[in-house]
């Protein structure tokens, strides 16, 4: 790399910068007013705007879920019509996937935290970052236009020829998804470049926080897979509008080809949703057990392995679709391979706890919930990968339960862990720990009451996307509905105490969890430029055996030094000097 040969001549002088617990100037006080927020290029503000949008969409998607579950209380009509029901489940899926899960962790938490973990002032392309947000908003507007017109009744998968024949507003939604895709693509492009080019002195690839590794893997998937979604929905639009004849069998197309195109994006997309969650788990588990993450490279590289193998398994959504036997066999085999790196992660996380100093604060509680629920999601994924069993379980509630265990028990719980972990950093306020634990337990209980029965009724034969169902499944559905209400209450409590903390919460110190992570060495909330110095890194982000002072270093003078290797060398030389300084 070009910079490497340059900076060796430089002398880096470092000193300790202890973050103030009472910052006078933060990014929240720096630029005020609606207009300043709307035009900001600050990654932290953009992250918060994403977070608010995602929360709103989650509330909408969640409300839809509650309506759906209520309708399913009785085998026949409970209170809404079949067509309405079909629209509701379509919207629940589309909103949760495209507007909540995909942008949730990378665009909201990732945007806020990742540049700080790199010790950068911002992402590589701040204006592009803001543009991504507005593209996301534009996509949302298209979706709302579709709702205002005829809604959408195709399921979030848009399978042809149903979608090309449907009289609902398919074109508006597909254009919305097309636009939304670009938001995701640009965020991914931005993050990859940022991680490569914006690291502070000393942050070598082996000192990259695992959260950054996870976001890196995620961005790679976003960049490679999302364009294919864009072209797919564009072709679908043309198919419906002009009759292209590529996907609709009535005019010469092939519906199974559409499924290939769709899942080429949408399977890797589930890794876009879950891999960033893995990053959060690694961060939280290390902080709350005060211990180096066990198997750093295993966890970092398994994210990349998942990103790669995740591209080769899309056909496991299509075992019953009529794809060729060869393809089915290959896809099944590869599907098992993608399970291995995921298993490796879980084992490494559990081992990290061994001989740790474990504190069960709310973020850690969510990590434990994650490990339990996500394991179930993983095992049932193995079940669904097995060819013969898949034939029986495909498109039943077993699948519904499986992906909720992975997406909600995995991604969403990880998001909650991250949100509680970084909330003090983002807002400078502490939330009510008791209420947080109560709601975590409620969510855990509610979640299992909702989705465990779905495994059973799915295996019994209950198909998904059913408005009416045969009587034998009534008790399972009713239990599930009650569980969903408990879940709803859990989320309302979270909303309550987080809002309360904004206004009445205790002030958070710079580093309430005593984490070694770089983002915690800034003030809470951070300064407009994240750090008022250029941070210098000499230890890994999880080196809890090293003194805290050595994690608070920055360049003593403003130089252009931006090289990881030489920084370490020089810092080692000067170690004694600054050590005296900082300890004295």
């Amino acid at each position, binding site marked *: 790399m070009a910079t490497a040969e340059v900076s060796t001549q430089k002398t880096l002088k470092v000193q300790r910068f202890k973050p103030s617990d009472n910052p006078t100037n933060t990014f929240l006080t720096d630029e005020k007013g609606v207009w300043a927020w709307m035009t900001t290029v600050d990654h932290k503000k953009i992250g918060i705007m994403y977070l608010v949008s995602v929360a709103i969409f989650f509330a909408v998607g969640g409300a839809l879920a509650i309506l759906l579950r209520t309708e399913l209380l009785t085998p026949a009509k409970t209170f809404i019509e079949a067509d309405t029901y079909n629209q509701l489940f379509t919207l629940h899926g589309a909103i949760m996937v495209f507007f909540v899960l995909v942008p949730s962790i990378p665009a909201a938490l990732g945007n806020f935290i990742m540049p700080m973990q790199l010790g950068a002032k911002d992402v590589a392309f701040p204006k592009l970052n803001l543009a991504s947000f507005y593209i996301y908003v534009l996509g949302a507007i298209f979706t709302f236009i579709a709702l205002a017109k005829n809604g959408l009744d195709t399921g979030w998968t848009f399978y042809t020829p149903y979608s090309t024949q449907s009289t609902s507003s398919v074109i508006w939604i597909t254009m919305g998804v097309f636009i939304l895709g670009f938001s995701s693509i640009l965020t991914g492009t931005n993050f990859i470049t940022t991680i490569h080019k914006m690291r502070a002195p000393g942050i070598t690839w082996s000192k990259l926080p695992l959260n950054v590794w996870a976001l890196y893997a995620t961005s790679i998937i976003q960049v490679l897979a999302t364009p294919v979604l864009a072209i797919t929905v564009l072709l679908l639009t*043309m198919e419906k509008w002009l*009759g292209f*004849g590529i996907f609709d069998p009535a005019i010469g197309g092939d519906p199974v080809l559409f499924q290939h195109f769709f899942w080429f994006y949408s399977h890797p997309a589930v890794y876009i949703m879950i891999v960033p969650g893995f990053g959060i788990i690694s961060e939280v588990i290390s902080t709350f057990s005060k211990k180096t993450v066990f198997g750093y490279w295993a966890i970092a590289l398994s994210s990349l392995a998942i990103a790669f193998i995740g591209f080769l398994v899309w056909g496991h959504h299509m075992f019953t679709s009529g794809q060729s036997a060869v393809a089915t066999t290959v896809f099944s085999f590869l599907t098992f391979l993608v399970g291995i790196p995921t298993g490796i992660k879980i084992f490494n996380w559990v081992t990290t706890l061994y001989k740790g100093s474990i504190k069960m604060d709310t973020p850690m509680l969510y990590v434990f919930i994650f490990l339990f629920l996500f394991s179930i999601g993983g095992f049932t994924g193995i079940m669904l990968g097995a060819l013969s069993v898949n034939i029986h379980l495909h498109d039943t509630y077993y699948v519904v339960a499986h992906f909720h265990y992975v997406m909600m028990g995995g991604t969403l719980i990880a998001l909650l862990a991250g949100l509680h972990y970084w909330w003090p950093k983002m807002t400078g306020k502490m939330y009510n720990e008791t209420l947080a634990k109560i709601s975590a337990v409620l969510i855990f209980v509610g979640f299992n009451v909702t989705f465990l029965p779905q495994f059973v009724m799915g295996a019994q034969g209950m198909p998904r996307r059913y408005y009416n169902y045969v009587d034998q499944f009534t008790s399972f559905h009713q239990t599930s509905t009650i569980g969903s209400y408990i879940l709803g209450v859990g989320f309302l409590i979270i909303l309550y105490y987080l809002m309360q903390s904004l206004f009445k919460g205790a002030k958070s110190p710079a580093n309430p969890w005593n984490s070694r992570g770089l983002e915690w060495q800034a003030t809470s909330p951070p300064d407009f430029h994240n750090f008022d110095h250029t941070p210098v890194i000499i230890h890994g982000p999880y080196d809890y055996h090293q003194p805290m002072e050595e994690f608070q270093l920055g360049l003593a003078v403003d130089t252009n030094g931006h090289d990881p290797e030489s920084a370490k060398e020089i810092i080692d030389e000067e170690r004694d000097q600054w050590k005296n300084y900082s300890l004295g």
Partner: protein
Amino acid sequence: MANHSHAHPTHLQHHFVDSDQQFEASKMGMWVFIVNEILFFGGLFCAYIVFRAWYPELFTMAAKELSTVWGAVNTVVLIGSSLTVAMAIRSAQKNQKRGIEINLLITIALACVFLLIKYFEYTHKFHLGIFPGESLYTYEGIDHPLAHVFFSIYYMMTGIHALHIIVGIGLMIWIYIRARRNEFSSEYYTPVEITGLYWHLVDVIWIFLFPLLYLIE
């Protein structure tokens, strides 16, 4: 030397440490975007390959409706424009303001020629009744029930490519205006470089579209 890099040049954005980091980051960002573009067109190429493998005779028959001569002319036009864009970057690197402007103008002109030829190709087909999509397609000169599918793919591929050309022309007009304002020099020519990368990509895609659509015998 050291002082120079410490001074904060006007083109340097606040979050970068120096011009070099900014240049490398911008260029890498563009390359990552090119990855996007490849997969974006990749979807179309995939549809093309699948249908060609299913109906090879359809492709042979339908490709006869496309003009090899005009396709070849357009290929040469785009190659020429790629050359002039490369020359524009070279001019920027050598601080030749006139060179940037002239080369950009030639590139824009060539891009317009490409679009013009494309326009005549399209209107000729519309005249025959070859429209994209089964509902509009009325041409009966190709004896194949799926003739409209080939032209759907053809219009989609060349249409999106033409859209990229139009975006490219817009970018180059913008770069041209900035060049007129003396914003570029050997110290800072990042926008010229990354616009050039984009333009070459558009050229490369056409390099594949041409034999795959026009040269099937």
